[in-house]
């Protein structure tokens, strides 16, 4: 009996240790963001959050307009998520619930393209947007991955669970195909759509390589690009840097805490079914 008890205690100790290692860096970010740089970087360091946040925000703003970056990130991400959600839901519904010529071929090509790393697309995309003079715009960040094959794939997997009888019955009642998609498929698929939308949301919120390439002027920067710019300076003010990190993490964190379940299944790609 005691052996079982020891085992339980050991489990809890290992897991708690793991949680400390996982959450610790966030705590340190808060400590850094609320103290002057010198206090976090001293020996021994100050372990307690301080009252220097406002000053850190002010010096952050003197380096880069972080509120503008926050707005850019929010605008790009929200538009991307809504449009991407509808586009992939429509495509997923078509693949899941219709028989048509070329279905296997088109779906196969979507799947195959998931194997190609993003790096292989970046240069022609840059030339494409440059030739349309669309670099350094919101459209340049929103458009390229709107038709995201993985999201389409997830939507299709989920849409297959819509009962055919439901669609059939609506048809008998005289419902048009558009009505069936918007009024029957979408409402019954809200959990799946939420998960896929969260996948798209985090993907875009944290997107870095392409915005780094396609955004040129500072007032177009998204949060990750702004953050990397501060981190790339010769002498880093860590208080300022941690404040920037906190501002970029906080919004997605709050959403995560409210929508954990959707979030986890969305980011993992729907492989978690509870």
């Amino acid at each position: 009996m005691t052996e079982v008890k020891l085992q339980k205690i050991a489990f809890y100790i290992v897991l708690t240790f793991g949680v400390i290692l996982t959450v610790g860096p966030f705590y340190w970010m808060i400590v850094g963001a609320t103290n002057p740089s010198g206090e976090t970087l001293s020996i021994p360091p100050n372990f307690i959050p301080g009252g220097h946040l406002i000053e850190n925000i002010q010096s952050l703003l003197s380096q880069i307009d972080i509120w503008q970056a926050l707005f850019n990130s929010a605008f790009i991400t929200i538009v991307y998520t809504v449009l991407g959600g509808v586009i992939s839901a429509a495509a997923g519904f078509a693949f899941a619930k219709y028989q048509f010529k070329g279905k296997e071929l088109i779906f196969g090509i979507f799947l195959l393209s998931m194997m190609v790393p993003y790096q292989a697309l970046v240069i022609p995309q840059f030339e494409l947007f440059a030739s349309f003079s669309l670099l350094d715009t919101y459209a340049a960040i929103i458009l390229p991955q709107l038709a995201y094959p993985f999201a389409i794939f997830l939507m299709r997997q989920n849409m297959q669970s819509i009962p055919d009888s439901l669609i059939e019955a609506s048809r008998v009642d005289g419902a048009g195909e558009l009505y069936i998609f918007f009024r029957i498929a979408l409402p019954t698929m809200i959990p799946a759509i939420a998960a896929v939308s969260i996948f798209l949301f985090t993907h875009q919120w944290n997107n870095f390589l392409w915005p780094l390439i396609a955004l040129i002027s500072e007032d177009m920067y998204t949060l990750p690009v702004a953050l990397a710019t501060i981190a790339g300076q010769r002498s880093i003010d860590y208080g300022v840097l941690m404040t920037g990190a906190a501002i970029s993490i906080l919004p997605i964190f709050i959403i995560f805490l409210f929508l954990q379940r959707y979030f986890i299944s969305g980011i993992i790609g729907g492989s978690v079914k509870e």
Partner: protein
Amino acid sequence: MSYPSEETNWETETEEKGSSPDPGGRPVKRTWFTVKTAPYVLLLPAVLLFLIFTAYPIIASFWLSFQTTEAGERVFVGLNNYVRLFQDPIFYQALGNTLLLLVLQVPIMIFLAVILAVLMNSAFLKMKGFFRVAFFTPAVTSLVAASVIFLLLLNPDYGLINYLLTTVGLEPVGWLNNPFWAKVSLVLVMLWRWTGYNMIILLAGLQNISNDLYEAARIDGAGKVRQFFSITIPQLRPVILFAAIISTIGTLQLFDEPYTLTGGGPVNATTTITMYLYENGFEYFDFEYASAIAYVVVVIIAILSFLQFRLGGERK
């Protein structure tokens, strides 16, 4: 994959109804939106966007990798870019760095994730929801933000980690300044960012293992350790394989962390393939050479995914 629910037979019976005019006799506004045309209409936005922003770039960069710019004109040069690539010491260094990070990081991470998942799956564990959320938090953090936090933690002179090392009597480490430790720093960030993510994937796999298997093993007198090695690991194999493949692909594309944390330094010790691609493409504007680098990544990912499938899936 086959989905029996897909075998539908409503198509033919509803076909005429959709294309016929409405009972009122006047042509319906959307006669083109029938059972026959609906899937194409629904797919149209996705397919168009995909053709322009994914399919075209994939082909264009392949074509680009056989060209070069001479006096402002693009000319076909055959395999020149690839030949140059295989004589480029920095490319080899970037390739070596990337593969080293892959070999260091992925097995450690999968190992840790399996352990955590098994602990999380134990029946008596309370506060599962709390642990799950806590371990998952790094996965919602952007890679840039994660790297930025570690920039502070790993500061060689005043960072918390070196402070903790010295308080337990160890030597401080020149994390970001030393070619070896800079790689370790990257591995640490990646472990922090991704272990919980993989743990959740593996946990889902564990939950799918039937309890009957463990029951039978217990009756046969197999101990916990034996059960772990003869039931858990073999049953979890496909999920471990999946986690290993996505981690491999992710590591081969590593960019955000080294760009933010080390800038590729010291002296290219943490330059990854993607960083080298970025440098060539967007600092030297040699798009053709960068495209060749991209296609080497494509080939490496294809080979490694194939190998992992062969090795990991052989007993399936």
